[in-house]
Every structure is written in structure tokens, then in C-alpha cells.
């Protein structure tokens, strides 16, 4: 999972000078195979070992982190690969959750099929919403996703989340007191560690899906669009199609995450999707980095793990909101590639400095 494929240059979302390929690879000097191996080992450690190492509380938090890492991944793909900023991923997450609950209460689909169906339906919804907006670029695309997300939030407040009631909306006010809007888990996944492992596996599948896309023709088309849309058109790239594809992929992944969220302990509530979250999720994705695949993981950790750690230390979570704001500004100013790229780069620079000192001449 390299930072940038060999041919792309590091271009930020709009207009900074491009760096050479060599500079882009400067921080990453190990062969790709070793890196892939390390990632695989880490993944297995987390998958198999984590449930035994930490308490149920931290495991449930880790599950939450894993679910939201799919959402941050979708946003990172949109922002980093295609250059499209969407402020509507949280609203889509809520929509995905709604679809999953409605399917879950209304049909008898087995869990994997349910997730798949949720992803596909949410992907279709994302395409429907995105289609008219494709002519817009940059700022205006971001604004329209913000507006659409706000509109969806209002609709969701009126319809609520299904909780087994009857009718098209599947919501019953009387049951809302006692029945939470949560999907019933298949017995195999009932325990916290089993569900955690399921979520990690699904997340890994989503990351793999994204990786496959980045290496495919779609990924190259996205890189061309990100560089310069007019040039891409001139080169014969079907910009509309590939932008649509990106939207569809991001919405699919977010929908799957919504399905997982609906199945997790606690289920869904309209309280869980406040307006502020759309901004916060963009902030952490930018801070984590949009060009590498570690970025979304860092972003999800910032979003869902860090508040719990801070509270453990007795600090108010509001501090984090301020920190994220500062982080966004910092990223805009200095390191558009985000922390996930900056830190290894800084470490590599440090290593080079040390080597120069240690072996002069």
C-alpha cells in the first residue's frame, strides 16, 4: 500500500506546485513487498490478538473505530484520489443505517447479503444525488453536498430510524421507548470479539476494494481528473463516468459502514448524526492524510478513540474539537498530504540527518 503510484506526482486539491516522483517517494524507501508483509502481520495481530489484550470497553471502542475507518476511507478516496470534497458522508452513513434497518426489520436477508444490499442501495442513492451535481467542481461541489446532507438530516428527523414498526417507514413511536433501532445480530456474531473481528474483516475488504480501484483504470482516470480536469477531457477520459464511479464507490462503502453501525451494540439514533460531524469527519480525514491508506485509519482513531483517551485523562472532549480545527488549518497551510505521510517523511529526514552525522564524508 504505497503512498503514490510511481507515475503520479503529489498534487494537492488545487494548484500547488507538483513535486517530482523521486521526492514523492523520498520518505518511503523500503521495498513494497516488505511493507505489504508488515501490514499483513499487523492486520493479523489486530484481528486475532486484540480481543484478548484489551477489555470489552476498549474493544467496543475499537469496533467503532473500525466502522468509521470505512467512512473516512470513502472520504479520503474522494478527496485524495479524485479531488472531490464531500461534506455529506455522515448523512450518507445515516441513510445507509436506515436502509439496513429497514431491510433488516422488513426482510429475512442473511447478514452478509444484508450488508451488500445496503451498500448497493446506498451507492445508488449516492449516484442519484451526485448525478446532477457533477458539473460542479471544487467549492461548489462541496457546498452542494453540504446542502444535500442538511436536507437529508431534516428528512431523517421526520422519518426516524426503523425499529420494527409497520408501514413504509417502519417506525413506531410507542416502541421507541423500549426497542432500540438496532439490527439483530446472527448468533455467530453475537459476542463483542466476534463482532469486532467481523467488522475488521469487512473494513479490510473495503480497503482492498479501494486499493484495487486505485490501481485500475478508474484510478488512473481519477489521477488525471485530479491533476487537471480540462486536460483529462482533452485526453479522452470520460470524466462524468469516472466521477460517478467514485461517488458510487464512496457511497457503497459508507452504506456498508452504516449497516455495520446498525448492527453494533446500541444501534442507531438520530442523536448520533449531528450536523457538526460532517465538518469534523472532513477535518480528521485531512489531518490523517488523504494520499495514503493509513490516513483513514489515523482519522478514525482521532475521531472515535482519542475522545475516550482524553476523557480517561480527565480532559474535556471539546478540546478535541478545537484541536481538529487547528489541525485543519495546519494541514491547509503546510502539509496537504496529511499526518500519515508527513510523519514518516519527517522520520526519514531525521534518519538521513543522523546518518550524515554518524558517517561523515
Amino acid at each position, binding site marked *: 500500500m504505497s503512498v503514490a503510484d510511481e507515475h503520479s506526482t503529489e498534487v494537492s486539491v488545487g494548484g500547488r506546485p507538483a513535486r517530482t516522483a523521486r521526492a514523492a517517494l523520498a520518505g518511503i524507501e523500503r521495498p513494497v513487498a516488505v511493507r505489504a508483509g508488515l501490514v499483513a502481520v499487523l492486520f493479523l495481530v489486530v484481528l486475532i490478538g486484540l480481543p484478548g489484550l484489551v477489555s470489552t470497553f476498549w474493544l467496543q471502542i475499537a469496533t*467503532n473505530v473500525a466502522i468509521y475507518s470505512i467512512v473516512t476511507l470513502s472520504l479520503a478516496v474522494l478527496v485524495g484520489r479524485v479531488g472531490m470534497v464531500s461534506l455529506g458522508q455522515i448523512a450518507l452513513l445515516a441513510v445507509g443505517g436506515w436502509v439496513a434497518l429497514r431491510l433488516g426489520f422488513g426482510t429475512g436477508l442473511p447478514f452478509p447479503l444484508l450488508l451488500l444490499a445496503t451498500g448497493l442501495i446506498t451507492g445508488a442513492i449516492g449516484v442519484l444525488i451526485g448525478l446532477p451535481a457533477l458539473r460542479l467542481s471544487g467549492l461548489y461541489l462541496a457546498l452542494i453536498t453540504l446542502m444535500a446532507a442538511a436536507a437529508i438530516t431534516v428528512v431523517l428527523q421526520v422519518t426516524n430510524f426503523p425499529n420494527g414498526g409497520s408501514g413504509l417507514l417502519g417506525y413506531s413511536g410507542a416502541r*421507541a421507548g423500549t426497542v432500540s433501532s438496532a439490527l439483530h445480530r446472527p448468533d455467530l456474531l453475537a459476542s463483542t470479539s466476534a463482532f469486532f473481528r467481523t467488522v475488521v474483516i469487512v473494513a479490510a475488504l473495503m480497503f482492498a476494494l479501494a486499493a484495487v480501484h486505485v490501481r485500475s483504470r478508474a484510478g488512473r482516470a481519477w489521477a488525471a481528473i485530479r491533476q487537471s480536469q480540462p486536460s483529462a477531457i482533452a485526453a479522452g477520459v470520460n470524466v462524468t463516468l469516472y466521477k460517478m464511479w467514485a461517488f458510487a464507490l464512496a457511497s457503497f462503502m459508507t452504506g456498508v459502514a452504516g449497516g455495520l453501525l446498525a448492527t*453494533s*451494540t446500541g444501534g*442507531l*439514533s438520530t*442523536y448520533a448524526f449531528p450536523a457538526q460531524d460532517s465538518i469534523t469527519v472532513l477535518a480528521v480525514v485531512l489531518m490523517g492524510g488523504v494520499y495514503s491508506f493509513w490516513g483513514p485509519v489515523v482519522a478514525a482513531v482521532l475521531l472515535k478513540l482519542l475522545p475516550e483517551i482524553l*476523557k480517561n485523562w480527565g480532559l474535556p*472532549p471539546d478540546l478535541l474539537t*478545537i484541536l481538529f480545527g487547528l489541525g485543519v488549518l495546519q494541514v491547509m497551510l503546510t502539509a496537504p498530504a496529511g499526518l500519515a505521510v508527513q510523519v514518516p517523511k519527517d522520520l526519514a529526514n531525521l534518519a538521513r540527518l543522523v546518518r550524515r552525522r554518524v558517517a561523515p564524508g
Partner: protein
Amino acid sequence: MKKSSGPRPGRPALALALISSLLLVAAACGSGGGTAGSTSSTNSANASKCGLGNGQKATGAPLTLGAIVTKQPGTDFTGITGMAQAYFSCVNDNGGINGRPIKYIVETEQTDPQQVAALATKLIDDDKVLAIVGSTSLIDCAVNHTLYEQRGFNVIVAGVPFACFSTPNIAAVNMGPYYSSEGAAQYLISQNVKTMVVAGANVPGGDHDISGVTAIAQANHIPSKGAFLENVPISDAAGIAVKLTQAAGDGGGVVLNFTPPEGLKILQAAEQQGLVDKVKWAWSTPGNDASVVQALGPAWNGKLGVNAELNLVDSPGPDNTLYQKLTKQYAPTIPLGSFGQMGFVAADIITHTLLSLPDSQLTPQGVNAAVRQIKNFKTDILCKAWYFGDLQQHVPNNADRTVVPQNHVFVQKQSCFDIAALQGNNLDTIRQTEKSQGLNGT
């Protein structure tokens, strides 16, 4: 003129620090609020005592209690747990629980269901709390009640959603929006309103919360002219105020079921539109709040009936006097008001329960079993004695007062009255059980 050719990493960082510190200075000057209009004469000789009341610091092995409370922009219930902590601090300074101090772990949450579920697991499994007391959360009851039932935890809360009043293992010191809105409607009926309109927050279960108003209006042959759910935070309070008064018509009644900031918006908008006297106004218990009564001007004197689940903040009873004393001594930044009283009562209940147990029973099983057996807990802050009881549904606080604002202070308009039993609200069954099991001396 020298142009900036690119980012200068050093300067913005410093500047950020500068801005942040400026903002934080401004913030530090801005926190907290005025004191509630308290006209109490605190006669400490008349105050109840904390715990053993012997003035000795407790030094034994701590007894751990837990709570889950919502704290996020716009919703902050930490005043309740803060007051409970104040009570426990006083207990710890007065001999503790037979020599052992109480350690109170308060987990704040930001209405993320997964987070709230994890926090309950943390309290029970990791922190191994003896009991969960004083939780006040928008979603904890709904998310975690199954866990509490599975683990045999009998939780004492200050309830918000209906799940806090409809599940077997949760009992609230307050009354909650559903029953309390009904109580507000009962007040309006006693004021001979011609019609009934109710508006509530569009939150999960919000439609059920306001259904009691429509039901009791119908039971009293008063036409119900609307049950509106409004999205919160409200952005067009003036429009809502006009809509409600138009729907109710002259001499009609309007019941509000909103949190203090949201309900206040509607009332202030109504005042700005000159609608105060067009209809008769009532509010469920969230309106019984210090910041609300301070903000309402003299135009509202006697014009708003608030269903108060707790006694007046300046009432002279011994428990309430102790509450005022504790606020002054241990929690001066928490304004006097119903939030603080709720935290006080919850802490009071668990302390007396713990004091009655032998040391061998101070385990999660022992304490929770004892909590379930609580009955006839008398306090001057509540209308009737409190109980937990072995019931499928707990509404121990089912009699309230009505208070009205008078020059920035609440005064009592109606003394304790029972919330009416209606078909479907289970109060008659609950009251029968109270009698038959002798739960609260009725």
C-alpha cells in the same frame, strides 16, 4: 510590496496559539451564569446530615459507583452528576459508608450509541461499580437497558427518554417528559382551557412523549387542536409560537415539551409577538429550571404553568436545606435548580441504601438487590416517598406540583397532585402495586 510566496510554517503556528489563548481568555471570563433567584434562609440547624454526619474523613477501601451523562454542545447534564458528587464528597467527609469513602466515576458521552454501550460495559466490567446512580443521558436508557437487565443492575437515573420509565431495571427520581406533559395538561384543564395544543421536540420517542396530552384532553372532552413535533435546535421559534396560538385559538391551552433552551425560545418569541395572553401556557418539567425563570420577564408572571417534579429550590425542608448547603460548600459553580436537586436525591437514596448494608453485602449483587428493595424513601424534595420495587415498569415519581414564574423566581401554584391514570399509561396498575406492596405508604 513584498508578496508572500508560500506558506510560512512557523508564523501560523504561533498565531494559532495566540488566537486560541485569546479565545480561551474570553471563554474563561464567560463561563458560568448568574445565581438563581434564591430567597432561602439557610437554617443549617434544620438541614439533614450527610451520611453518618460525624465530621470524620472516611479512609477505608473505596466503594465505587458509576454514572453515564450526556455532555455535548447544546446538551449538558453534568450538573446532575456534579451535585451527586458533591453529596458523596460530604458523605466522605462525614464518616463515609461506615468508614469507607465513595468513589464516583462519571462517564460523559456524546450521544454516540456505540460509545454509550461501551461505557456501560466499562463501568460494570472494568470499573466493577457497585451500582449505577445518577445517570442522565439522552440515550443510555434505550441503549443499555437490556445490558442492565442481563447483569442484574438496578439503575437509578434522572430520566429523559421514555425507556427510563418503561423498562424493568431502571427507575428515575424524576417524572420524565411523557407523564410530566400530561401533568402540565392537567394544570391547563384546571384553568378551564377551551382547546388543547401540544408541541414537543422531534427526538426519538418524541411523538409518544406528547401523546398523553392529547389523551387527557380527550378524556376531559376538550378538543385537541394539534400535536406538533418540532426539529431541534429550533430556528424559527417565532413561527412556531404563532402556529401554536393560532391552532389553539383564544382561550386555548398550549403545552410545551422541550428542553430549557428550546422552550425558552418559543416563550420569548411568543412574548415578542404579544401572544402571552392569547392562550394559557404550560410546560413539562424541563421548564422547571433556574436559567429559564431568570430569563422570563414579568410579562410571564403567573402566566406559565410548569409541572415541577421536584420541590421549590428555596423550600425550607431539611433535605432541601442540606441541598442548598452542599451546593454552597462543595459545588458553588452549579446553579441551584432542579438538575442539582435530582442529583442530590439520587445520591441521597444510594447513600442511605449503602449505609443499611453490612460490609459483606457491599458487592454489585448485594447492592443491586438492595436497591431493588428500596421502598418508602421519604424526602421533602419529592411529593411522595420514592421506591424502586420489583416491577416491570417504574414510575415512582408520579405526583407533581405546578409552579409559575413570579419576578424571576418560581412559586408554587398547585400543591402535589397525582398524574391522571389513563388507558395505556399504566398508572393505575402502578398505583395498585404501590398499595399492595406498600411501596410508598399510599
